[in-house]
Structures are given as structure tokens and as C-alpha cells.
């Protein structure tokens, strides 16, 4: 029983992190239609911002919550600036070109950012300072670390807030309009460029949030932390269905579930990738547009 509860909490934690990264990936993916291979590097950049800011702030401030809030907001801002700059310099000139050119340009940006981080921060693995206090909470007879519960709560709040923002606000409506038909949205008086910039900003902020949670959960990371995050969030977004927030969440939790369950059920823990990809391929063979996706015939 204890193990089941603990593993369930682990599953929720990993699933929330995957879900958040998948949403942050599919913000740009859904609205611009770009498979942003630089997203993993943006995640890495945000983690390094968080790391440097929080280690520096701990010299002056005692309260962990204050450090968390300040470093999260400053890092979000800095990452957003970088994301918007990337969009201006590397993606906007290619907006009318073929989709593949855009994808390859994002691959280039990804390599560029990752190795800039490596050159400035070094290849040594870093340890994220514990931003959420280390306490235990008794739940169903099991002591669960507070940070795990916080991760789940923060992720769920972020997802609900984002859904409401997309559904109810004017900006959200214009985002959905641009996602549906960019030209028609422009004709209706929506500033497409502005909306796309906002999509990149949201993506960067969510990536920073996911980075802070990832750092809290696993603490040790290096310059290539974004590589796997990139692919896993891509996979989660596609399994769930492109451009659907609920789909990205579902995809994230499915991947989290596979990662937790596979080592328990299978003899060798390293088979989990094989299982994850097998599930992925089967899902896409049966339902080629992802679980909650709309029909799409776009070619990249």
C-alpha cells in the first residue's frame, strides 16, 4: 500500500513536469505550427538563469519562498526576452518559407543556445539549491516530501490558469484565431506578429516554471538537460494531439506513467524507453492525429 501511494505521488510529480513541458512546447507548436527544436535549449537556459539567480539570492535572503518567487519571475522575464529575440531574428524571416526550413533553423538555434550555455557556464553538472523547504507531509500513512506535493499543486494551478487564459481572455481568443487561420485572423484585425510573440513568451514562461519544478525534483542538471526534455515534450504533445492543451497534459501524464510503471513491471529498467516508444508508435498507428488532436494534413 505504502509503495503504491508513493509511486502514485511519483507518477503525479513526473507527469506534471512532463505535462508542463509539453504545454510549453505546444504553445508555439499549436499557434505557429513550428516544431521548435530550440525549445529544449530554452528550457536549459531558463534552468541556468534560475540556478544562478537563486544561488546568488540565497546570500542575501533567508526565506526560500521569496527566493523562489523572485528568481522565477526574473528568470521568466529573461527567458522570454531570449525567446522573443529568437523569434524575431531566426523565425520571422522564414515565416513564408517552407515549414522544414523553419524547423532546421530552430535546430540551429537549439545548437547555438546549448553551446552558448556550455561556454558560459561550463560542462560541470550543477546542483539547483533547494527552493522549496524540505519537510514531510503525512498522507494515507505515508510521509511524502512537501516539494513533491508543491510540484503537483503548482503544475495543476498553472495548467488551469493557462486554460482559462486561452478560453476567456481577448488575447487567448486571438491566439486561437491565429492558430486556426493566420491569414483570416490578420484580416479580422488581429496583430499576428504580436500574438505570435506572446505565444513565444508564454512558452518561455511555462518552460521556466517547468524548469523550476524539474530543478526541485531532480536538483542535478547539466548543459544538455534540455535535449531529452525537448524530445519528451515533443512526443507528449504529439501523442496528445497537436495544439490541444488537454492533449499535451494527457500526453505528459501518459509518458510519466510509462516512466514510472515500466521499471516496476519489467525486469530491466532501461527498457522503459522501448516501451514508451512502442506505446507511442501504436497510438499513432491507430489514431494518426494523436489522442485528442484534430485532423491535420500539414506537411513539415
Amino acid at each position, binding site marked *: 500500500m505504502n509503495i503504491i501511494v508513493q509511486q502514485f505521488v511519483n507518477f503525479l510529480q513526473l507527469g506534471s513536469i512532463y505535462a508542463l513541458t509539453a504545454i510549453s512546447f505546444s504553445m508555439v507548436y499549436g499557434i505557429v505550427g513550428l516544431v521548435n527544436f530550440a525549445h529544449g535549449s530554452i528550457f536549459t537556459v531558463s534552468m541556468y538563469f534560475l540556478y544562478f539567480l537563486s544561488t546568488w539570492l540565497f546570500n542575501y535572503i533567508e526565506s526560500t519562498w521569496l527566493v523562489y518567487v523572485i528568481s522565477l519571475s526574473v528568470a521568466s522575464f529573461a527567458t522570454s526576452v531570449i525567446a522573443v529575440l529568437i523569434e524575431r531574428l531566426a523565425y520571422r524571416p522564414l515565416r513564408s518559407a517552407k515549414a522544414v526550413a523553419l524547423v532546421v533553423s530552430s535546430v540551429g538555434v537549439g*545548437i547555438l543556445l546549448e553551446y552558448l550555455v556550455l561556454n558560459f557556464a561550463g560542462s560541470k553538472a550543477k546542483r539547483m539549491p533547494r527552493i522549496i523547504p524540505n519537510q514531510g507531509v503525512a498522507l494515507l500513512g505515508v510521509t511524502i516530501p512537501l516539494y513533491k506535493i508543491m510540484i503537483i499543486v503548482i503544475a495543476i494551478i498553472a495548467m488551469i490558469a493557462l486554460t482559462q487564459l486561452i478560453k476567456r481572455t481577448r488575447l487567448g481568443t486571438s491566439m486561437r484565431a491565429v492558430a486556426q487561420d493566420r491569414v483570416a485572423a490578420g484580416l479580422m484585425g488581429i496583430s499576428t506578429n504580436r500574438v505570435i510573440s506572446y505565444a513565444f513568451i508564454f512558452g518561455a514562461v511555462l518552460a521556466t516554471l517547468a524548469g523550476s519544478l524539474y530543478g526541485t525534483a531532480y536538483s542535478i542538471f547539466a548543459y544538455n538537460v534540455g535535449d531529452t526534455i525537448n524530445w519528451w515534450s515533443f512526443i507528449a504533445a504529439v501523442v496528445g494531439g497537436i495544439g490541444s492543451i488537454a492533449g499535451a497534459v494527457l500526453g505528459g501524464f501518459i509518458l510519466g506513467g510509462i516512466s514510472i510503471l515500466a521499471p516496476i513491471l519489467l525486469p530491466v529498467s532501461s527498457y522503459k*524507453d522501448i516501451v514508451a516508444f512502442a506505446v507511442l508508435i501504436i497510438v499513432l498507428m491507430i489514431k494518426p492525429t494523436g489522442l485528442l488532436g484534430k485532423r491535420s494534413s500539414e506537411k513539415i
Partner: protein
Amino acid sequence: MKKKEWRNILVVLVLVAALVLVKELKLVSTSNLLILQYIGIYSILVLGINIVNGYLGIFSLAHAGFMAVGAYAAALSTRYLFTSQWMFPLALLVGGLASLCVGLLVAIPSFKSKGDYLAIITLGFSLMIQSIFMNAEFVGASRGMNNIAIYTNIYWVYGVLFVMIQVVMRFVNSKYGRNLKAIREDQVATELVSVNVRQAKTIAFALSAFLAGIAGALMCHLLGYTSPSSYGYNNIIDGLVMVYIGGVGSITGSIAGALLWQIIIQTLKDLGTWRWVVGGLLLCVVMIFMPNGIFGYQEIGTAVRGLFARLTKKHAKEDVTHGE
């Protein structure tokens, strides 16, 4: 016709002479010789990727997996079956054919899925193959296979590359190659004129995998080892970069891409890790100014003639630069 044949023979002779000079007279240092061999091997790989990603126009990420299968199959065959040096071509063939079989398997999802979804499926195949090798104890699991006989030399690399260029050149100008280009432009219209789309895609994936497998086989017999970590995300990205920098749908482009990228990452060692920053920047710049790559959809002959025509008659051939 006759003139063309003479020209081909001349090209082969010049190539052989250059190789002999480079290898036997030691005109280049050992490390540069190695880089030359990398360039040749990656050219073969990129030719393979280009058949699916360029000529067929499917964004596939399976090439690292194909390369892994080719490398492991060839390494196993030289260890247990073809133990002497003169049997090396058989080992290459085994590598290519093993990879081809996997290619046939990967072609199946391409009948139904498209775009991003297909990209993910091919990525999944590639990483699954990596995971399988990572867990298979008889090929050394994550340590990989060591002490593979070093049979590859520069003659083999460029000999195979020459043959493969001939094969691909004939293939893309044949009925089957034209089918691929037609599918790239419009799959529905191609189906309507009675082209067997499934057959065409299967052939494309098979040939692509075959080339990648041979590249893998050459690579592991050059380095003397092979390990699952050489066929991961970074190698997928590497392959993509070379295809799209050089130019999609072009044999010249494949070789130019391999040449350029290998020169950047292998010879700019002085720059340390900054060379990757340079490489990433270059990739963005090439895409912004030449979205199809340097030799996108054209061979060297056409490109040079186009350039020449533009230089002599300024207003002519404007459409080459603007694309639309």
C-alpha cells in the same frame, strides 16, 4: 554519348590518382586523412537521408537507427563470419541489407501517417533501436562492441561513395525516382495517375536505409568500435543538419553538406566548443537566405550554369534566387 563516357573515366582516374597521392605519398596528415574518411562516410549517409527527406519529402528521423543496425550487423559479421580482410565487401553488404530490412519496417507507418506524426514515429523507431542495442548483452550492451577489425581505408570509403553516387543518380532519374518527386509535390495527384505510392515509399525507405547501413558499417570498421551512444539524438540532429545545409533533393548537396559540416566540426578544433555555436549560427543563416540549402533541388552542373548565366545576363534567371 561517347564523350560523356570518356569524361566519366577521366573523373574516376583523377579520383583514384588523388586518393593514391593522398594515402600513399602522405600528402595529408593522419588526422586530416581521418577527416577525409569521415567526409566520405557521412556523404554516403547524407545521400541516404536525402532520398527520404529530400526526394520523397518526408521529414524522417530514422537515420541514426539505420546506421546503428548497419554498424552492428557488419561488426558481428566480420567477427564471426567474414573474418578475413578480403571478405569486407560482404560485411558491408550484410550491414546494408540488415538496415534495409529495418527500412522496410519503418516504411509501413509512412503509408498512413504524415508530417509531424510520422516524424515522431521515425524518431521512435530510431531511439528504440538504440535502446535495444543498449540492452542486448551479446553486443556489449551500453559498452558497445570493441576490437572490431579495422578494415576501412580511404579507398573503400571513396570507392563505395562513388558507386553509391552512381546508384542514387540512376535511381532518382529513373521511373522510381520520379515517382518520389511526384509524391513530394502532390501525393493525391500522383495516386490518381496510377503510381503505386506504397511501393514507391517502400523503395525509398529501403534504399535510404541501405545507404545509411553501409555508412554505419564503414564507420565502425574505421573507428574499431561501436556503441549505442553514437546513435542517439545528437547523431539524428547531425544528419539533419548536413542534409539541409547542403541542399535537399540533390546529390551535390548531400556531399556539400557532409563536407561543410565535417569541416566545421572536425577542423575548427581550435575553437573548442565554440565551433558548435558557429555551426548553429551558420545553420540559421543558411536557412534564412537559402531555405532549400546550398544546392536545393539542383545539381552542381545546373547551379554553375545558372550562376554563369546570371553573371553574363544580369536580368535572366532571377527566378533561381527568389524561388517563388
